[in-house]
């Protein structure tokens, strides 16, 4: 990935900004100029937040050279406030993970740019602290 692409996207990677469509009412990640569902350009930025749950996960051993030192990576299919997205799970060992468990967002390193050594950060998710994981607060 280029340094420029990461810089352009820093806001929606650091704070998980997606798109809400005023026409069809759907919200999705990432940011877009038009709705991917209905095509409307009547869209606005939307913070993706709210209760987060793990729908599925994968322990990824086969990664690119840029991410070799991060392997294995835990990838998650996560639902955040009703919006599904694919992200990384952190601060957890594979054995702790359970489909349906509660998660919370946290800013973490994703990879290191090959030539410059620049570190890329983005929002990841970790098991929710201080809860029993059942979603009952």
């Amino acid at each position, binding site marked *: *990935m280029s340094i420029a*692409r990461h810089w352009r*996207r820093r806001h929606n*990677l650091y704070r998980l900004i997606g798109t809400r469509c005023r026409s069809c009412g759907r919200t*999705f*990640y*990432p940011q877009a100029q038009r709705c*991917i*569902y209905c095509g409307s350009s009547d869209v606005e930025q939307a913070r993706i937040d709210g209760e987060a749950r793990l*729908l*599925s*996960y*994968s*322990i*990824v*051993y*086969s*990664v*690119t*050279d*840029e*991410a*070799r030192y*991060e*392997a294995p*990576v835990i*990838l*998650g*299919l996560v639902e955040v406030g009703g919006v*599904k*997205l*694919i*992200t*990384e799970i952190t601060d957890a060992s*594979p054995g702790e993970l359970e*489909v349906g468990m509660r998660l919370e967002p946290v800013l973490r390193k*994703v*990879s290191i740019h090959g030539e410059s050594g620049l570190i890329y950060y*983005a929002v990841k998710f970790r098991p929710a602290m201080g809860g029993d994981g059942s979603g009952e607060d």
Partner: protein
Amino acid sequence: MAWISGVGMVRINRHYQKGLRDLAVEAASQALRDAGVDGIDYVVVASSSSYRQVGQLDLASYTSSYLGLRGARSLAVEAGEASGLAGLLTAYSLVASGAAETVLLVGVDKLTEYNSGEAYDMIEGLYDVEGEGFYNIGHAGVAGLLMRLYMHEYGVDRLTMSYWPAVMHANAKQNPYAMLRFAVTPEKVASAMPLADPVTLLDSYPLGDGAAAVVVTRRPGQVRIVGVETATGLPSPAHRDDPLYLESVAEAVSRLGLSREDLEGIDVMEIHDSFTITAYMILETLGLSDKGRAAKDLAEGKYTVEGDGPVMNPSGGLKARGHPIGATGVYQLAEVTMYLRGDFPGVKTNGARRGMVISMNAMGSSAYTALLQAE
């Protein structure tokens, strides 16, 4: 109206001795010989990332020149893993519209020119690089997510999931063009090295180099192209209400005007089984298996030559024949053409009259389908 009058395939492998162009010219020469034509109006080359692989741009014209087709009209087509079928759509449109009488379609990709880390980096780009592709998804991570989701949702265990690779390897063993010509048991699939747990090495396609070609013509012959269709899908499976349902595949097939009953009447199919889970998602999206049933149906013998339903992937599929990304769709077309002609040198599909190809990119960012018929 358009027909496929010639096919050519190079065995998929790590071809250290041959360059990308050598592979393309070899497959194309076979197809031209098989078709017995000399006048080619257009050359369409399908490739996912030839520039990344060997540094070559304007691949189609260089390929045409070294095929000795001086002056031919030539163009390249790219649609990731679906490039081969996007090439067929182009060739078919040129012939059906009358712009060309005969088109040569060549699919080629070379994944083993560099180390596998470089290849994985390249094929990560099949996914949305502004979406999940920002994270370290690898080439199998999204398949891992969908496989666990499927197993959890439908209560299917790891061993039952493992029949697809076992059947594909058994088929590929008889296919001289296949990369992985050895048998594996479901137990071995389940316990193989994890790539993106629960996906193991034996759930995934191998990295290989390959080229295949078909000649598409207006002149009537043995195998007619009944139709070619395509549809765009949402960028990520996370955007779908049911991430396991391939809307783009369903839309492309319905655009061909085919019902589920029509699909059940098709004799043989080549489908895009990039991973075990992808195969089951396609079978269930087509309605050939009920939701959550595809793995069990296969374990009970459905989709094999002896069983019910269309025979799936006599070639061994992407899983075992191999998957040189942009070339794969052209392999599928060449294989289905041979099943319908009755001269495929592998698993026999005696008397097959109708054959279908299902191709797609990633987890359905686009889908293509082609229906062929023996005349």
